[in-house]
């Protein structure tokens, strides 16, 4: 671990306008290939932190360095799964997934292959020609996930991507995400409310406290990749799960 961190968050604070402090003194260094989950109470600043990394909002104090660049300049390397599905209402499902590939100029055939494959992964091959308003909430979110995965970015920011999905679909997509990561390695930043998910996917879990958002605890997850689905039933896993839940509860209670 002697190489410089891919993402360096340096005593970052954030407030909107003259509002209260939303994030305070956030300090984090993330190496290439890590998968960091953020958990914390609603409104504690998780989305804001992701948006800071993506350069969609500016830090009020401190600084972020990503691969030696400012967040804005490093967007090249990143993609974002937003908390809302954020689909273009006038594009069909397949066209929505295709959009980032189209924008970066991938050739048509490659685009179509990738779109078809990703829709297969999220189980929406049959809905490829529908418009967003014809989808269920969970399906919309899956389109958004397919869109992000099709880009295969170096850094993937995921803001509660699986919140609107049933446990089974969720577990499957968790596994798919790890599989994709094994093939096309990316550094992940992941917001979730599911502790299980956080433990299963991450190398590290950052527990945030609220008002203002501060890093309360960082929990290392020692399990090696690839992680089989059954890992989730092992005692070590359940132990870490309990630890994380406790940390979260502690944060909540003060």
């Amino acid at each position, binding site marked *: 671990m002697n190489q410089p961190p891919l993402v360096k968050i340096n005593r970052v604070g954030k407030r909107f306008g003259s509002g209260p402090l939303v994030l305070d003194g956030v300090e984090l260094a993330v190496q290439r290939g890590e998968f960091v989950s953020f958990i914390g109470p609603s409104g504690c600043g998780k989305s804001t932190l992701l948006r800071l990394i*993506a*350069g*969609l909002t500016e830090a009020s104090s401190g600084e972020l360095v990503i691969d030696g660049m400012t967040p804005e300049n490093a*967007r*090249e390397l*990143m*993609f*974002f799964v*937003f908390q*809302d599905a*954020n689909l*273009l*209402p*006038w594009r069909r499902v397949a066209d929505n997934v295709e*959009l*980032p590939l*189209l*924008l*970066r100029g991938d050739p048509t055939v490659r685009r179509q292959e990738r779109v078809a494959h990703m829709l297969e992964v999220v189980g929406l091959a049959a809905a490829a020609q529908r*418009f*967003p*308003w014809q989808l269920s909430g969970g399906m919309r979110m899956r389109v958004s996930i397919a869109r992000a995965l099709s880009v295969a970015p170096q850094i993937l920011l995921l803001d509660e991507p699986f919140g609107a999905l049933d446990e089974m679909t969720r577990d499957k997509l968790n596994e798919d995400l790890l599989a994709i990561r094994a093939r096309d390695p990316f550094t992940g930043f992941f917001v979730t409310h599911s502790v299980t998910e956080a433990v299963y996917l991450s190398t590290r879990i950052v527990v945030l406290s609220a008002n203002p958002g501060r890093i309360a605890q960082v929990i290392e997850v020692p399990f090696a990749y690839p992680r089989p689905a059954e890992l989730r039933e092992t005692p070590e896993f359940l132990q870490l799960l309990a630890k994380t839940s406790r940390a979260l509860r502690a944060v909540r209670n003060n």
Partner: protein
Amino acid sequence: MKARLLSWIQPAVTGIGLIALWYLIKKISGVPSFILPSPDEVLRAAWDERSVLISAVMLTSRGAVLGFLAAVGVGFFLAMALGFSPRIKASFYPYILVLQMMPVTILAPVFVLWLGQGLPSIVAITFMIGFFPVVANTTMGFVSVDRNLQELFLMCKATRGQEVRYLRIPGAMPYFLTGMKIAGTLAPIGAIVGDFLAGSAQGGQGGIGYMTIAYFSQLKTPALFATGLTACLLGFVFVGGVNWLHWRLLHQWHDSMVKKE
């Protein structure tokens, strides 16, 4: 099927009602026909003057169509330039307003001098009268784009041009189409004014604007009203076209059209 039929019957019923009202007003107020003719007089005049009216409409349509296209096209690109950056907007918007608000009668001689009497000047005048609604609406559409989608485009490293093409233009469509509809109603008026300020007529046969004054000065009021209604027909063609476009472009996704079940 039934809905289809109803959508024809309803305006027809209103139409009949309005015509009845027109008769009634005429009866009660006793306005003479040379001021407000009755519907049947207008109809008869339209029939009597049909050959003149048809060729007047033909003449005026060209100016109206070209002026409309210019207003829509140039208006759209102007709006795009304005929407492109707040700096461009701040710099140019006031002057576009000046252009719109400058009474066209004042500029007409300049047009005629440069473009000559006839079609080019008429088109220029029609353009002047119709372009601003397109600009105002489309600009508003451009700046009303969902912030979240804008952030998506940021994350996609979309160029400004891509953002315009794939996000702002489709997002502004409902506004643009409304502007286009207004331009459509203004185009015939513009062409008539143009005809008036820069047209010319041979053998007593000019465009609608020309016929308007001619009938007016000859006190042929029923024919005058017939001419006015003919101008409206021309306008309906534009509005019909825009409505069709509206349907084509929005019916699959926009809230104004999509029928949720």
